[in-house]
């Protein structure tokens, strides 16, 4: 973090105008990603993780209002024209989608699609792009890449397809890879393989990665830094160890408590009671208050600010300081 970060997001707010009212899917989020760094964004469904990613690429739906600033590699992304934005997408920032079953066009062969992604950004001959596509498939561990390149997506298994998606994402050597729940649609055994490929590819290309997931296990194995989102807000951000071992936020602690543990016997997993709030009509004060075991009166009165508790560790909770002094989050 010696020089300016690759991606710097300040006070990003994304609001959808719907018939039922304005929904704030992302509220005042600020974060940075440095070159070569892996940032994991963790949260429940609907916490605004994916919307943040789509907003970064300006792929959000119409009728969306975005405020704040997104600075990518010295460029103000939100001020770019659609055409300038297009030249960044897929070349400097590439995205890997959740469901490899639907993220590939069924009418083209896998090789054609990767070659197409190359040819969108670079003047390459068809043959050269095809050869590179085959090399990329080999790189991501698709066996018999030559033959597989000329097959259609439906002839690939889920894991192989996600490998192909990764190959497509890295085909233009992007500076930033956004992986939106890349393993959610896969079998557990395949998840590990795909994460390994993703990790290797990220190391090999030296690109930064924003890994969006709700799987804390995945985070532990691959992220440098973690940020936890809840109900459109950033709840806690810090290095991997800060979050896993020294969390100062009741929501993060509840999340960690809800994963099964190899050591020690738990009779039942501790779920977080209740459901995430409706973003259309969020609760007063802290959004996590209705489900929080540490909630006090103050929590209903005002939304806590996000405060720095370590070098790069910040938490959004009125009781952050008390938690640091040893208040148990979950009994």
């Amino acid at each position, binding site marked *: 973090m010696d020089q300016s970060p690759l991606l710097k997001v300040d006070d990003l707010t994304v609001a959808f105008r719907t018939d039922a009212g304005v929904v704030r899917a992302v509220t005042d989020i600020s974060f940075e990603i440095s070159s070569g760094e892996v940032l994991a964004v963790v949260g429940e469904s609907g916490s605004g993780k994916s919307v943040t990613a789509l907003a970064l690429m300006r792929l959000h739906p119409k009728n969306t209002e975005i405020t704040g600033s997104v600075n990518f590699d010295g460029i103000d992304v939100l001020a770019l024209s659609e055409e300038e934005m297009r030249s960044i997408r897929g070349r400097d920032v590439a995205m890997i989608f959740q469901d490899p079953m639907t*993220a590939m066009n069924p009418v083209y062969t896998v090789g054609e699609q990767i070659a197409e992604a190359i040819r969108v950004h670079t003047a390459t001959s068809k043959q050269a792009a095809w050869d590179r596509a085959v090399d990329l498939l080999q790189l991501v561990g698709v066996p018999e890449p030559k033959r597989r390149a000329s097959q259609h997506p*439906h002839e690939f298994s889920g894991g192989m397809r996600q490998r192909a998606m990764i190959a497509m994402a890295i085909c233009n050597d992007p500076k930033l890879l956004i992986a939106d729940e890349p393993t959610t649609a896969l079998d557990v055994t395949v998840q590990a393989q795909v994460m390994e490929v993703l990790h290797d590819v990220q190391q090999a290309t030296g690109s930064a990665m924003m890994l969006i997931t709700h799987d804390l296990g995945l985070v532990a194995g691959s992220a440098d830094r973690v940020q936890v989102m809840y109900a459109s807000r950033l709840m806690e951000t810090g290095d991997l160890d800060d979050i896993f071992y020294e969390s100062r936020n009741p929501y993060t602690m509840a999340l960690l408590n809800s994963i099964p543990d190899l050591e020690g016997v738990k009779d039942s997993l501790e779920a977080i009671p209740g459901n995430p709030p409706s973003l259309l009509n969020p609760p007063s004060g802290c959004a996590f208050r209705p489900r929080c075991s540490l909630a006090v009166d103050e929590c209903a009165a005002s939304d806590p600010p996000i405060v720095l508790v370590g070098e790069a560790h910040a938490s959004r909770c009125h009781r952050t300081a008390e938690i640091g002094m040893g208040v148990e989050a979950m009994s």
Partner: protein
Amino acid sequence: MAKSTFDQENLDPEYFDSERYEHHVPVFSAGEVEGLTEAPQTFGWLAWKRFRHHRMAIIGAIGLVVILLLFIAGPMLSPWEFDERNIADRLQGPSSDHWFGTDEIGRDLFVRTAQGGLYSLRIGFIAAILATAVGTLLGALAAYFAKGTDIFISQVINMVLIVPALIVLSIFSKYSGGNATSLAIVLSLLLWTRIARVVRGVVLSIKEQEYILAARAAGASHMRIIFRHVLPNVVGPVVVEVTLLLGTVIVLESTLSFLGLGVQPPNASLGTLVADAKGNIDNDPIRVLTPGFFIVMIVLCVNFLGDGMRDALDPRSKNERG
């Protein structure tokens, strides 16, 4: 398999041995997998592979070829000219001399049926191609860009749909002189809406697919997405609609010609041949039935062909035999 994916050398070579691997690929038989490693399979080649296992489609295709050959080669073999009159031979039944008989002024009906059939097919194909081009483009634009574009194009479609085709065509025929190309253009202007509505519906669902978002995330422009990612996925439903449309055009042209609003003498189409013979249908039904038979056969063959092409062009459909 959990080894690092980058040291391919360390992988057990036996594991990916091509012979073992074939068992996981039920779509191809062993011999075809061999060929695969040489050249990438093109989409067209795969489509042809599926198409030739579609029995009805092959029957339709062969039927069309036979009819076309008959229409093109038949008059060359026949000694008679299209417009040659032999009053002495008028109103004859089929014979070795006049295969389909003769009409009131002694013209050979086989040659007239062949020429008229070609004329009908020409109008049908031109109209279907034009209607498909216009309908596909406008339907796709409407669905893809939505909002104002969609409202505008949808309203145009609705307006065209309520235009009474027979009235427009009867007015038009007064000025066109029954020229095949202009008749086809007018027919296509009335019929493109059918294609446009189908394409609009299909594109509305396709554009919500994640691969369209993925294409945008890869930096593709709107036009590139429409032509490279959306339209190829529309081909299946459109092909079926086009073949139905081709049938409709041929029937509609016959109807118009039958009413005297379509093809004008001295030209003939299947429709005018039926119309010419209708007065004598009680004594001489064969003169109505021969051109009628060809109308039905052409429409049937085209519909079979369309069915097979729809299945062939869908890369997800299985390569079933039989």
